[in-house]
């Protein structure tokens, strides 16, 4: 093995800056939680995000009092912003699970310093996503009708419906993501317990860490459970966006009834999720000076994943066009060529092709991938592009389906925007709280990246 020589320039950059020890890693990451003051930027950022989050409360109140008529949805377009934003947020969440589960199974050590952050993003994105169908129901206090429970009229949810599958998929996804995140936190909270100077916090962390003491037997069960969770979360994350795409693909509406939907939705989800991770992690890394752990190699790798999944998504768009033409169905052909490309929402379609198809191609250049400003702007454009994609899918197909007499335009109202911007505020508020109150990088896993963490020599395997 030693004889194999790899040329210096071909070796990947290290995933952690050289010169770190167990103590320096622990100190640097935990300092944000334990010793650093609330920075001015953090306070201002949280204040702005929280103000936007209040827009969510206001919009929710308006809709709950006045009903869903406050949204722009109408007779042909029954799924407006609510479903667009639901799919968008759920998709964003998928990158977190991909990083924490799939990259763990693939033994990608660079995932280690971004998995906690990405998982938190997943949780908060799923929380935002869940709000949309809930409010869109119109009578959210009856949400439990979606769950199978014994009731006096002896009815069960219609489990042949993709909308019911969605309930199961999304609640399972939220539960599993939460547990994955919490399990990862246990050893790090034990570290906080042992480092904090405050007696009160010692009790708080002591209770939260459940008395974790790093026993070898415990670690063995822990690793086993963590690996199994990763193995379970991997098919789960693929299934969630597949089920979301079934909401459309099982219907017979032109533009929805297509078998390309599941893979293309999953790729789109990962694409948008990585874009959101980059949008968030670039400023956080700069603000908390975490360049030692979130190196340029991390950004480079994430940009590559974004480029690859972006190409899959673009292939999906090309396929939709081909299918429409090849189907010889005049409804499908009109949907693609008449409606999407030249119809009333054509600007959305062409903006989508620009944002998701063309702009990410800049990431073929290594120089561009390593330029944080370019990467940040591309990631925001991709976020917008993926939102446009969901808008195109939901709205154009419903606005102009089979009968021209039943066509109608969709215009979102101020409450649609309020609710959407409100969830962005809610999401960012949670992210601000997260980076300050929880170690944003998994400390115990970063320790394992250090060269001295592995037992050496014959001792290891006797």
């Amino acid at each position: 093995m030693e004889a194999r020589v790899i040329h210096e320039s071909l070796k990947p950059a290290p995933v952690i800056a050289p010169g770190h020890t167990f103590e320096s890693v622990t100190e640097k990451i935990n300092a944000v939680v334990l010793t650093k003051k609330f920075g001015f930027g953090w306070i201002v950022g949280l204040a702005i995000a929280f103000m936007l989050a209040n827009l969510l409360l206001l919009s929710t109140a308006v809709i709950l009092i006045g009903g869903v008529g406050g949204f722009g949805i109408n007779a042909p377009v029954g799924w407006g912003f609510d479903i667009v934003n639901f799919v968008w947020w759920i998709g964003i969440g998928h990158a977190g699970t991909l990083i924490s589960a799939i990259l763990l199974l693939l033994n990608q050590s660079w995932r280690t310093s971004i998995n906690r952050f990405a998982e938190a993003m997943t949780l908060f994105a799923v929380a935002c996503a869940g709000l949309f169908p809930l409010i869109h129901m119109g009578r959210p206090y009856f949400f439990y009708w979606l769950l199978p429970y014994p009731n006096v009229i002896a009815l069960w949810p219609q489990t042949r419906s993709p909308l019911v599958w969605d309930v199961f998929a999304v609640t399972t996804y939220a539960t599993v993501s939460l547990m994955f995140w919490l399990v990862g936190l246990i050893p790090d909270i034990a570290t906080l317990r042992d480092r904090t100077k405050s007696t009160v916090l010692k009790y708080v962390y002591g209770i939260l860490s459940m008395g974790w003491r790093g026993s070898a037997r415990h670690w063995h069960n822990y690793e086993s459970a963590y690996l199994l969770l990763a193995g379970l979360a991997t098919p789960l994350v693929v299934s969630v966006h597949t089920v979301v795409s079934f909401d459309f693909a099982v219907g017979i509406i032109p533009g929805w009834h297509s078998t390309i939907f599941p893979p293309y939705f999953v790729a789109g989800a990962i694409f948008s999720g990585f874009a959101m991770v980059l949008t968030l992690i670039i400023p956080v890394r700069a603000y908390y000076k975490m360049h030692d752990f979130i190196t340029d190699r991390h950004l480079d790798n994430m940009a590559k994943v974004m480029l690859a999944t972006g190409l899959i998504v673009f292939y999906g768009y090309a396929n939709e066009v081909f299918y429409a033409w090849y189907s010889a169905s005049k409804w499908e052909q009109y949907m693609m060529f008449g409606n999407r490309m030249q119809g009333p929402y054509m600007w959305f379609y062409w903006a989508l092709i620009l944002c998701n198809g063309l702009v990410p191609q800049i990431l073929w250049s290594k120089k561009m991938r390593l330029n944080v400003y370019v990467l940040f702007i591309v990631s925001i454009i991709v976020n917008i592009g993926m939102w446009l994609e969901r808008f195109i899918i939901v709205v154009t197909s419903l606005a102009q389906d089979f009968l021209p007499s039943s066509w109608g335009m969709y215009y979102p109202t101020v409450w649609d925007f309020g609710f959407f911007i409100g969830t962005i505020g809610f999401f960012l508020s949670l992210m601000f709280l997260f980076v300050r109150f929880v170690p944003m990088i998994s400390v115990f896993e970063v320790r394992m990246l250090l060269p001295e963490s592995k037992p050496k020599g014959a001792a290891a395997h006797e």
Partner: protein
Amino acid sequence: MSDRWDEKAPLYGIIAEFDNPTDLVVAAERAYAAGYRKMDAYTPYPIEEVAHAIGHHRSLVPLLVLIAGVTGGVFAFVSQWWAAEIDYPLIIGGKPFNSWPMFIPITFEVTILFAALTAVVGMILLNGLPLPYHPVFNHKRFERATQDGFFLCIEAADPMFDRTHTMNFLKSLNPREVAEVES
């Protein structure tokens, strides 16, 4: 045995701290070879070799997860079939009552849900957590175990345990420090 009061204080075990994982693994292997069985190692991150060295080879978690996953899947499928075929048959979209392919997504999701919940709850319960107090916390340097310390504790409950002898044995393993842990 002398009659000094402090030697009669109840003892949980004797703990040795090591500077690096290699010394800990060697020490754990030597202790196991010397016949000690009731011992545990404490490390700031998982080290698979240590668990094997102290004789912990198999985790029960995978078996529990398998059982829970199968249970969840069977439960989800049977309850959907029962609701659609027996309890409230309805013709939906001209499909048969037992339109089983339509039951697969929920069967899959519930399988994952049961398995994942069991992985987490099972791991915590098998580890005997939550347990806010444990005798090893009495050791004054034990807070390093979640940061950069590598500990091996031979428990007084081990039949081979002898206060002096075990202490000398641990001292021979190149530790940074050896100390008694009160129970």
